[in-house]
């Protein structure tokens, strides 16, 4: 266990160091691809919480992401608030929205819950399209201000791709630490107990519903914050954010990377975005190849790519 822990911490530290120096060796496009990975990392961490730790597959994740993006964009455009405030507000609003949805939905069985959250995304999209006075409907909000890193107004404006990258990296590190804090807290341990055996957890007095709710709300917070970064990077938000594309990407990252593990989700964000980018060499068959890879990956290592890699890494040390 001790050596395992050291391996993990070492792995994370090494990976972070690599990410810190990466822009020095990479072109703009590759740095952009890293930003995309980091953009998906936040909502993916949230999905990992609700799916990997509370055992419920949620499609509401992208709806929270979109809600966070809209909140952040509207605040920046209407009131010129600084980025940190938009970022926090996006998370808070998404979390607050998760609450009333969770009340009926979390009582449901696995599959019904999936459908309910999917439905929520559709309803959120309908709202974004029709609440024209606020969201501008389908025209969307464009020319969303770039992130302002000041205490209130003014401050440094994030512009170049490298600055965006370091902003994304910083936010991701905070998110990863927050995630670690949540899952290693007593509440996190309860969540794991509930995932492993709900009836047992309930019988020893764990208020399963409350912890599921906590996981669901927190998943919303992560996604909302992710949406905030997204909108300030792409500078545009429209109801298409609620389309299945984003939600599916998240699922692939979490399930393909290693659900219920932190490293798996981090690795998944980079591996699957990289995969989809590498396949750009052949635009005509890109999505076919991507689909086939998904099938191969999921059957080849059902528990996710990272757990498999970890096992491969660990085996030689056992042999000696």
């Amino acid at each position, binding site marked *: 266990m001790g050596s395992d822990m050291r391996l993990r911490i070492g792995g994370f530290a090494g990976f972070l160091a690599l990410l810190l120096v990466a822009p020095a060796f990479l072109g703009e496009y590759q740095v*952009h691809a890293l930003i995309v990975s980091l953009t998906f990392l936040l909502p993916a961490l949230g999905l990992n919480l609700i799916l990997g730790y509370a055992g419920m597959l949620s499609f509401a994740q992208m709806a929270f992401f979109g809600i966070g993006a809209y909140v952040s964009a509207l605040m920046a455009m209407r009131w010129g608030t600084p980025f940190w405030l938009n970022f926090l507000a996006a998370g808070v609003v998404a979390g607050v929205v998760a609450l009333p949805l969770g009340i009926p939905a979390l009582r449901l069985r696995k599959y019904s819950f999936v459908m309910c959250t999917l439905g929520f995304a559709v309803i959120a999209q309908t709202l974004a399209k029709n609440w024209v006075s606020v969201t501008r409907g389908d025209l969307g909000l464009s020319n969303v201000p770039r992130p302002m890193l000041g205490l209130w107004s003014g401050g440094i404006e994030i512009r170049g791709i490298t600055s965006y990258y370091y902003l994304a990296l910083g936010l991701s590190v905070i998110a990863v630490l927050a995630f670690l804090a949540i899952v290693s807290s007593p509440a996190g341990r309860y969540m794991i107990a509930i995932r492993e055996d709900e009836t047992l957890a309930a019988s020893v007095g764990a208020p399963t519903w409350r912890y599921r709710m906590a996981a669901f709300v927190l998943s919303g917070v992560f996604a909302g914050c992710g949406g905030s970064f997204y909108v300030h990077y792409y500078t545009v938000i429209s109801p298409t954010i609620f389309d299945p594309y984003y939600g599916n990407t998240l699922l692939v990252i979490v399930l393909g990377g290693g659900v219920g593990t932190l490293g798996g989700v981090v690795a998944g964000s980079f591996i699957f975005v990289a995969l989809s*980018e590498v396949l750009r060499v052949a635009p005509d068959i890109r999505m076919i190849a991507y689909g086939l890879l998904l099938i191969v990956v999921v059957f080849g290592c059902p528990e996710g790519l990272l757990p498999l890699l970890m096992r491969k890494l660990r085996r030689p040390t056992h042999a000696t």
Partner: protein
Amino acid sequence: MGVFSRRGLLLAGGGAASLLGLPATARAQSAITLKIGLVVPLSGPSARWGGFASHGAELAMKQINAAGGVGGKPIELLKGDSQGTPVEAVSAARRLISQDGVNVILGDIASSATIALQPVVEEAKVVLLNGASSNPDITYKAGVGGFKYTFRSYPTDELRARVILQYAAEKRGITKYAVLSVDNDYGRGAIAFSKKYLPEFKATILSEDYYKDDETDFRPVLSRIKSLGAQSILMYGLPDTTRLIVRQMLELGLAGKVTLAGNGEFTYPDTIKVAPSVLNGAIEAAAWSPDLASPRSQKFVADYKAAYGTEVPNVHSYTHWEALYLLAAAAKAATGTGPEALRTALEQVDYAGATGRVHFDSHHQAELPMIIYEVEGGKAIEKGAFTAKVNYPT
């Protein structure tokens, strides 16, 4: 909107024809080598639009290169899949720019993707030419509006919305509309512009509906429209869906009672064939139509059909095809070879396309005409071309 002028339909552009006809080496001295990255949806549900656009652009590339390219150098066309989303569009464009070294991005179709591309190309100093997105913000914020490298060679929906209302009111006495448009920025945007001009023509909207791009059942709405007594359905819609709607109008007995006005290939022969009795009297304002009498356009349609089996080109096929010729013209005229030179050349370009003279205004919006068609006796009749300047918000 400023001056509203009506003029005769421009026939084939002499400039373009001479561009093709001239020996390739004649003006070779300072031409820019064009390496164009086409960013459109190539996979997923939106691929149905990207397919037409890439067919059009590929055809133009082959034709121009067969005729000797630009200044003796062939045009390179590289494709990037945007899936119609900002994330994928930016990734595709970034790759095309920094890996493949393209000097032009042509795309996207979805407005949100195009808007996301604007800051990217601005930073990279690569020209973004758009021939399909309808969000007004794209050129409100371009040229003197800020984004120096964004150009749009596609008429605005503001113009379209206005000419339809005017033609319908003046020529047909239509004032009572029911809105049925596609639920995206194009459909919603066009209706928003229409509302701006309704009072001018003493017209009213009785009901308002928007359909998803994969909607297949319009019967409930059509039943309501029938009972409301609207004279016309104001529709800014999708071509394939138009055919479905007119079929259902036929089913519900709306033929001859309610006409269509707006845009959505109402006046294409293939659409009219579906329900001639419904489409009689339909009015359409089109940026281009395969029926366009211009010989240049006719030749394009013939070449396109020859290249892609029986597929009839749509307006995206045309605009992306024409965009390559436009870029070739600008590249030839450029003085210098850097990105600045191409941008300046585009700003100054005066190009004769199949629908009319292309010239970018200070916001890099091409001043292009809208052509009005009306279906009479089962055939689309050209009723004239209209242009107008866009009034930009300050």
